[in-house]
């Protein structure tokens, strides 16, 4: 039996619905097309897609888009390049000595001050053996903006020790074994490095 005329969609409605329901229904998904192009599909599926692509202008256009996209060299945002800027801080005072010297009865001062551009890092031995405390000051930004920034103490071998700056720029490490370390401070625009920070 025919449906009553009033219940039928008009031509435009039907055309829109057919289009919505059938558009590219018989095409491989963009992901399957991509796996085909990267030669990651099993032979049977690869053959099916190859046969489809021969007859489908839209899929060939998508493949062209994909190949152009994959062949583009990566253009990383400026912020990523900025973080790749590695700046080595210079020891300003005093002359290099073991930072734990004071803990072992050495009368020499243990405080070290390093500077690079507008960043000043002061490090000192902590209250207990194997601890290290520090203070970061960046003249171009208030201390609260440093909150949570990561500081890493990298030994020559083994996992790094990781600390975070508090809201006034303090950091602290505990349990460091004797040896020579690299200290890294991650800032938005750069990676600040103190090399050859010896802990005896």
């Amino acid at each position, binding site marked *: 039996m025919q449906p009553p005329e009033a219940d039928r969609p008009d031509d435009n409605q*039907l055309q829109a*619905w057919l289009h919505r329901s059938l558009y*590219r229904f*018989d095409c491989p998904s963009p992901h399957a097309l991509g796996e085909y192009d990267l030669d990651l599909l099993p032979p049977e599926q690869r053959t099916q897609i190859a046969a489809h692509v021969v007859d489908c202008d839209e899929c060939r256009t998508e493949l062209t888009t994909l190949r152009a996209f994959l062949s583009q060299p990566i253009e990383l945002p400026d912020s990523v390049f900025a973080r790749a800027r590695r700046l080595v801080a210079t020891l300003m005072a005093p002359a290099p000595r073991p930072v734990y010297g004071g803990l072992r009865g050495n009368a020499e001062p243990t405080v070290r001050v390093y500077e690079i551009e507008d960043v000043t890092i002061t490090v000192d031995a902590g209250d207990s053996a194997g601890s290290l405390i520090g203070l970061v000051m960046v003249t171009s930004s208030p201390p609260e903006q440093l909150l949570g920034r990561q500081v890493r103490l990298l030994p020559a071998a083994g996992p790094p020790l990781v600390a975070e700056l508090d809201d006034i720029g303090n950091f602290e490490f505990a349990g460091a074994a004797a040896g020579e370390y690299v200290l890294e401070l991650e800032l938005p625009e750069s990676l600040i490095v103190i090399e050859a920070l010896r802990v005896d």
Partner: protein
Amino acid sequence: MLRQVPLGELAHRCREETLRFVRGESRDDAYCFEVFARAVVARDDEAWAAIVAQYRGMVLAYVSQHSAAAAIRESDEYWINRAFQRFWTAVGADRFGQFPDLPALLKYLKLCVHSVLMDEVRTRRARTSTSLEEVAEAAAPASNTERSVLGALVGEQLWAAVLRHVQDDAEREVAHLSFARDLKPAEIFDRHPQLFDSVADVYRIKRNLIERLRRSPEIRDFLAP
């Protein structure tokens, strides 16, 4: 040996090597590859979180490079989440062996960016019989799952029903190229001039077919909720 290294150290070394890559220096991909291996093969959530943290900036750069991205306004987080979700779903332990090195994995991640963008392009275009420039203005789809289920199941059944109403090759081509490929009558005529007398002939065939489909109880059944 790297299998014995704690994840935290691996992730740190991976980051260092990536920065070397960014600076154009020589790098060692082994650390990042091992983090990928733990995430994909062992389904280690922490390793996967390290991968997302390490490569989200790269994924965002991929998105900004893609020709479709400018036409589809979505947040950065939307694309990042969808691309990583696509990778996670598509690559499991059984497939990890298909990726011999880190560049192969990152290329696949780039494919995931492409495929989620193109899914969106197809879905939006399916929602409107318009030019490509108007795709961006189309309403966002309810979900891609909805679209994929519709495409895979209902689409094939509906097309079979449509074929039962076409009378010759010319009508079949008009139906397929109009509904499944979104071509205008003039474009259909350009593709198959041997099938039609003129562009007006394509218009006439399309009108007749739509009218026939409109009166069909079988097609109407598909429209019923």
